[in-house]
């Protein structure tokens, strides 16, 4: 199993969600996060003064999938989150050792 953790632009969430639904992903977790990559934040102007915003608001999406579905899901996120502009985000893929559904006690593939 893989845990796919994607940092995306907040305004791409709905599109990414639709793409993931189309691949058969049943659930996901979304967290509001802040951070920066190579571009080191951006500038905002208030009353004529420029402020550097180092940590830009992003969304972190987490999806747990079986190994065979992982590549399709990664591709779907990459395609849906892509705008071509700086700050589109990153996708991290981690090995997932175990998964457990709290309500039923089902494990691993059955729990996803």
């Amino acid at each position, binding site marked *: 199993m893989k845990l796919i953790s994607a940092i995306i632009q907040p305004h791409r969430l709905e599109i990414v969600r639709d793409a993931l639904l189309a691949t058969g992903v049943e659930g996901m977790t979304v967290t509001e996060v802040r951070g920066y990559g190579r571009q080191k934040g951006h500038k*905002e*102007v*208030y*009353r*004529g*003064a420029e*402020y*550097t*915003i180092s940590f830009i608001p992003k969304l972190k999406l987490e999806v747990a999938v079986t190994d065979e579905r992982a590549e399709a899901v990664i591709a779907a996120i990459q395609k849906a989150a892509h705008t071509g502009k700086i700050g589109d985000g990153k996708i991290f893929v981690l090995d997932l050792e175990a998964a457990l559904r709290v309500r039923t006690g089902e494990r691993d593939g059955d729990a996803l």
Partner: protein
Amino acid sequence: MINGADTVWLMVSSALVLMMTLPALGFFYAGLVQAKNILSVLFQTFAIAAMVSLFWFVFVYSECFSGSGAWIGDLKAAFLNHMARGSIHPGTAIPESVFVMYQMTFAAITPALIIGAYVERIKFGAVLLFSALWLVLVYAPACHWIWGGGFLAQWGAMDFAGGIVVHLTAGLSALLAAWALGPRRGFPHSVNPPHAPWMVMVGAAFLWVGWFGFNAGSALKAGADAGMTMLATHLAAATATCVWMGIEWIKFGKPSLVGAVTGTVAGLATITPASGYVGPEGAVVLGILGGLVTYGAVLVVKRHMKVDDALDVLGVHGVGGALGSLVLPFVTGLGNGGTALARSVGAQFLVQLEAVAIVGAWSLIATALIILAVKKVAGWHIGREGEIQGLDFTSHGEAGYHSAG
């Protein structure tokens, strides 16, 4: 004899001006600070309004409006003991109680304007002591000199609704307080931007509406003067809003909401001293000048003087108020609807210049003494650690926002 219409208008105006402090100025300023300081700003405006009201009752009203001294009033109206239920304010057709209430709301907002300079880094006790001393030593004399029959009134200084008494005094004192306090951590390069621009807009919108009470109420009666004052006030605010919007659009490629509503407040401050004397054309000219000059002033204070007047009290209020007071003689005769000057334009300009210079100088001198006293008695800066933690928690043990639950 008491006039019902005048009385109603002044009671409504009193409520409008109190609304400018609570909640308007609170929102306007609170949106401009960081999230960890929102409550401290709201609390400072609220506490100042409450405290000033009591001082007003005890002796400050008397200091401002009782007696005919050139420099300061007397104490005959202390504790408002002079006032029977049916008393009429001399020269008007409104009850004395309504005049006292109306002027009290001016006294409440003026020290509250100053907090914009020292937000995010001052002790709460220092805010209260500073505001109390400032009310007694700066606001009350200036108010008496111009509105209470003091020497500037005798010279013929014109300040319809407080360009000098309110905005100039607050702006200059704010600059000095900000300078004495030192800048916020990271100023000027890495200070955090406003945490809630939408709240700044809500505050400015309430200020805009409340300002009709501030300016048109200063006619002290319902009628043609109040009507023209309200129109002039609105036109100047609208014009200065468009000017700030235009400048930012040209300069940065995008007009910002915070910039536009700052222009609104700057336009309102600029028209204030002249609001009862100009017609529509004069008001628009003041709006244009107010927008352009205050925009420049905000940049000058931060970039060239390197003073962290955090929310631009000098640039927006002080410069706006002074500008309106000085340009006033030149625009009253513009187009239709203005009032005639009692003397030539040049002679009136000279009087205005003297009033601005004298009140400005006194504001700086007295504020310097007040700062020294406050530092000794109540302390001054919250300390670097308290500043990082935020005043909401450090000073009040509260949080403006809880992330969950």
